[in-house]
């Protein structure tokens, strides 16, 4: 394996490009077993032998992965590799898609996620989600954040609700920008502010896990940097799984990185290891930018 250097941007280059070019790596390369360390001791979420089908097509092949407590796990991989599908399994958002079938064992702190006795509503309150495109409700900023606490009956009095809204907006780093216009529509904010509003909305219901599906792909670099900082701060209280197309972002925010390829989980390791010393040739090919 080549020695790699991680430069300031987090983008790594092979020390000796010639050795790499000798290998023929393309989409036909065998994937095989997941390499690295997919499991951890202090697991918040455990997924075992996950298969996902869209009608007849199989989108996820036998993926097993743990996501540890207070850890940020980044999922990277080329488009269509199944990382978003996998992420959406974790709070059963795939239930809304016709013809989507999920197999495998999922547990959140030992509680099953799938199963006839599991109510999806409290599950989604425990596992919140931030989507690729900011999707604030067409309501005021206040109502956007208060929506979750209201439907779950978290706050009984107006003062409590005010407090939750303020805290959530503060933690999302949005309070100072919006405190004077809480009654203005959330859709009137800029893209980055909208995404932080969506994050505030998600943490207002005090979830245990936050799933983020390419949260910065619609944002400019400054807003992206702001959200990345935020993810780092949120790690203290939450477990976070993030799907991203930006390897720099994965390198910056995550502790562990999982590389998906054509529905297979190729490699999971500490983020630093993945970007400096990938174990699998597909991972290496991807992070050095030879496909994807």
């Amino acid at each position: 394996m080549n020695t790699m250097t991680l430069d300031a941007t987090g983008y790594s280059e092979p020390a000796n490009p010639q050795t790499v070019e000798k290998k023929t790596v393309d989409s036909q390369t065998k994937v095989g077993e997941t390499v690295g360390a997919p499991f951890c001791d202090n697991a918040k979420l455990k997924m075992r032998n996950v298969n996902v089908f869209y009608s007849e097509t199989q989108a996820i092949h036998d993926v097993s992965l743990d996501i540890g407590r207070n850890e940020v796990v980044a999922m990277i991989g080329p488009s269509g590799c199944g990382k978003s599908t996998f992420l959406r399994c974790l709070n059963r958002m795939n239930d809304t898609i016709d013809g989507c079938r999920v197999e495998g064992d999922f547990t959140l702190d030992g509680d099953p996620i799938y199963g006839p006795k599991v109510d999806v509503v409290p599950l989604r309150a425990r596992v919140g989600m931030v989507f690729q495109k900011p999707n604030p409700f067409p309501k005021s900023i206040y109502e956007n954040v208060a929506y979750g606490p209201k439907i779950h009956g978290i706050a009984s009095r107006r003062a409590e609700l005010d407090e939750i809204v303020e805290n959530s907006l503060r933690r999302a780093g949005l309070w100072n920008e919006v405190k004077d216009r809480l009654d203005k529509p959330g859709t009137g904010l800029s893209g980055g502010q909208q995404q932080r509003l969506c994050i505030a909305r998600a943490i207002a219901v005090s979830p245990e896990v936050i799933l983020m599906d390419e949260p910065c792909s619609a944002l400019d670099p400054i807003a992206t940097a702001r959200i990345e900082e935020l993810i780092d701060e949120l790690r203290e209280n939450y477990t976070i799984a993030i799907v991203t197309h930006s390897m720099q972002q994965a390198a910056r925010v995550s502790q562990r990185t999982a590389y998906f390829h054509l529905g297979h989980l190729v490699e999971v390791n500490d983020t630093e290891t993945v970007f400096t010393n990938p174990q699998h040739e597909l991972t290496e090919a991807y992070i050095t930018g030879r496909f994807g």
Partner: protein
Amino acid sequence: MQTPTLFALLLLLVLIAYGTGFSRAAAAARGRGGMRKLAALPSYYGTHTALWCGLPALLLLAVWLMFDEPIIRALVMNGIADMPDTMAGRDLLYAQIQNQAAGNFFGEATPQVKEAAERLTHLRGGAQLLQTAMVLILSLGLGAFAMLRFSPKLRAREKVEKVFRVILIGCASAAILTTVGILLSVLFESLRFFQSVPVTEFLFGLQWSPQMALRADQVGSSGAFGAVPLFTGTLMVSAIAMFVAVPVGLMSAIYLAEYAGKRLRAVAKPVLEVLAGVPTVVYGFFAALTVAPFVREAAAAVGLQASSESALAAGLVMGVMIIPFVSSLSDDVINAVPQSMRDGALGLGSTHSETVRKVVIPAALPGIVGGVLLAVSRAIGETMIVVMAAGLAANLTANPLDSVTTVTVQIVTLLVGDQEFDSPKTLAAFALGLMLFVSTLILNFIALHVVKKYREQYD
């Protein structure tokens, strides 16, 4: 040449002009090595030539058709020695001349009429010839002119687009002008009505009995033109209809958009829309023969007195008629709410019903209000069901089991049959129409403001 034949010939010329312009441009393009050398695509050159050839000639034809009859009439009537004094007399005389010229005059015509009829026939023939000649000369001349002006540098597209923009503006203003025209005609007739009946009596009078004496000594010679009972009747019937249509329509829309499977939706939505296609007359006799007796018996069963034609029966059936307006439009706007809104709500742990009630419906509200408004205007304007099921008696009542009548029904009854068009009785119809127009306008205005204020914009 007769006008229709001339018109057809003109169309043919236009087609030929298009073809000529097109092929000329295509040939020029080939000669210069490709379309890029032309200032526009050949189809624009074709259209350019066709417009030159057809449009001015068509306008000339339209103007001619507008003015040739009055001019011919003036020429014919000029030669008549003893002209009747009154307008009506002149009209009668001219009608006689026309009939004589057409050869279906009953009885023996006076020599004066006969002579005038000959002149008329003669003039018409000449006018026809002149018309044909002028239109064809204009068409061919301008068509040839356009061909002569052809050059590969001619910016045909810009010219064609300019002309089409004018045509588009014309079509748009036609609709607006029609509305203005209708409004003005209704307004002037109403003003004539208000000369004989005071506005205050019409607006605030509680009695509606639109009779006018033909003779001064006739029994019951005084009519009453208080429109309040009509408006309360309209309001009551519409309110009952909306009471049925809005909940049923909205909920069926929610079911179809949010809960029903694809296959069920594909079947149920068109079937529901069939309701909108049932003629209102059919609804009318359904209301009169089935629902009204049922309402009466049901009322009797609980010890109430209901007339056999009741506001309730008409309102219920009208509500059923309006369901598809509400449901179909609401279904469309609910479907237009982006999936990301639903995902966002579900991702926070909302139940399906919370998502629908708190996120999807508020986001779709402007469209839903629009659908409901359309339904309200349908309800207010609906006539047939009310004629058949609610009766003609202008009762001022708040009891839905009584028979009532509506503005539209009264407009119909005022204008049906042989009427003088200058009696207050018929003019009252215009005043009612004006009131209806104004009230729906106000309704729309208010609703637009409400929607704008509570709109929840998603983007």
